[in-house]
């Protein structure tokens, strides 16, 4: 199976779900070609609303549609849509409206366009809103499962997708289970990596490289960042000496923070290595060059984990 961007998988899944769920509608703020909501728009033109470059209004409009019984997916780049924070906080969050906020272009992996287009604080922002669930699928199959789930979920949700193609990490027959972390590489006597989104495949590659150096490293895919699979974290902490989080996001407020909260609150002393963007801005470059620079590719993960284990 060739690698696919989760944004593509999202667009196709949404178009598919449109048949099964007549209440599903989609909105975009002039980025339908990029978020891939255009796939839905072409199939269901009367259920798609082009809002123009006006994300705040899109958020409120989505909330109104949801409060009147629709299931709106409102789409933009993760940074732009979550940047209209107060609109999400009140019109969607406080309302507990059934809006699905779809933020594409997650992380530094978008490369060329640079920091202003990168979703790097979006997970932190969305995690802080009461009742908001945060989902970041790792491949196309998981994206489809997540979209299907979100057509049934009650309450607000944030779905984070990638611009770049990502390799498939899940088996052909895969069932998305909301809130349940997926162990993709067993073991992990030395380290267990909790990875999310595009970092999952890199984590698997890194574990393979580290195995050759004699380290036993397990990998867990966290597609649901909120609510976090607490049991999975605690179970891993018992069997390993290093917990690692890997995310294409700031290490402040994202998956790394979520895992550290669990470890600290349960009095677990297992050491934690948070891998992500370290309180700095993203930069332009080819996706490969930028991922390498931030040590978020397989080699970068392996290097940081080995250094922590040595």
């Amino acid at each position, binding site marked *: 199976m060739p690698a696919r961007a989760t944004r593509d998988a999202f667009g196709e899944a949404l178009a598919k779900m449109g048949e099964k769920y007549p209440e599903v509608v989609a909105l975009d703020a002039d980025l339908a070609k990029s978020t891939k909501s255009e796939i839905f728009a072409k199939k269901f033109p009367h259920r798609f609303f082009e809002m123009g470059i006006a994300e705040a209004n899109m958020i*409120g409009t989505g909330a*109104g549609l949801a409060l009147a019984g629709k299931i709106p997916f409102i789409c933009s780049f993760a940074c732009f849509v979550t940047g209209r924070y107060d609109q999400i906080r009140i019109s969607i969050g406080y309302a507990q409206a059934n809006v699905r906020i779809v933020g594409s272009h997650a992380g530094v992996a978008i490369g060329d366009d640079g920091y202003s287009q990168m979703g790097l604080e979006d997970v932190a922002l969305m995690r802080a809103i009461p009742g908001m669930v945060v989902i970041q699928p790792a491949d196309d199959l998981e994206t489809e499962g997540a979209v299907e789930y979100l057509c049934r979920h009650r309450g607000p949700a944030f779905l984070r997708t990638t611009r770049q193609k990502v390799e498939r990490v899940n088996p052909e027959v895969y069932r998305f289970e909301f809130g349940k972390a997926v162990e993709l590489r067993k073991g992990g006597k030395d380290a267990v990596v909790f990875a999310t989104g595009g970092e999952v495949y890199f984590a698997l590659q890194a574990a393979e490289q580290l195995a050759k150096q004699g380290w036993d490293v397990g990998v867990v895919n966290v597609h649901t960042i909120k609510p976090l699979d607490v049991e999975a974290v605690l179970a891993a902490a018992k069997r390993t000496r290093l917990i690692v989080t890997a995310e294409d996001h700031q290490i402040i407020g994202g998956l790394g923070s979520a895992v550290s909260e669990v470890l600290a609150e349960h009095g677990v002393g297992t050491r934690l290595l948070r891998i992500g963007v370290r309180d700095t801005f993203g930069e332009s470059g080819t996706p490969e060059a930028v991922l390498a620079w931030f040590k978020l590719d397989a080699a970068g993960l392996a290097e940081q984990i080995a250094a922590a284990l040595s």
Partner: protein
Amino acid sequence: MPATTGSPAPEIRKLQEISGRLRITIIEMIHKAASGHPGGSLSAVDIITALYFARMRHDPKRPDWPDRDRFVLSKGHGVPALYAVMAEAGYFPKEELMTLRERGSRLQGHPVNTMLPGIEAPTGSLGQGLSVAQGMALASKLDGGRFHVYCMIGDGEMQEGQIWEAAMSAPKFRLDNLTVFLDYNKGQIDGPVAEVMNIEPVADKWRAFNWNVLTIDGHDFEQILGAIDEAKATTGKPTLIIANTVKGKGVSFMEHQIAWHGTAPNKEQTEKALEELRALNALTGGRN
């Protein structure tokens, strides 16, 4: 709008009588809560009364009725007026009105849909409610235009950029099932709207955005009802009703006074206000 002559029609008299009593309730609520926004509640109460008691299709016993008309109070700080109207209509017991802003009360300082059935959306962070109302109107259109959506925005609120995003988009979607009232009481916290950040020429701006724009006296029920009917009869575009209102309407020492935007009256002030309102109601033949 034609000027009224002679004694008003029974429907108008009924509305005057209700809003006259609700003004008293509003003052009592805010006094009891010892905080709240009397100025903008008193400027808005006539319009909200007209909507709930003369024009909206709604059922207080079935607040989740899918086909109900919606009202979104985007200027959420005016919610004492809405709570007073809702209790009068039967959405919740009147005794509950005096729990405004108390810990554990469904009557939050600014409205929220998740706590009080009949409230359509959480508002209070200004600029957001019009977009939400637009989304509801779109949902109605998707299902064949089953209901009408009313929204009230404040004049100071019109300084929010999001209002203009919605002003741009609602005509694009031809939302003739969306009617927006501007509670134009001319005052905001830091001073007169015209000085803080002038919104004029309001009518020209909204007409340029392709809205149907009407201008009325927001305390004249005949004009309020006439404008609602005209808005409903207008096809292909949404309507903005510029309602010229008086901040603190009905209480002499509050009228036009920005100081009463967000200040609760003390005991003496409350007594004086209630005395004035009762006298006014007696003049219009209403009960107190």
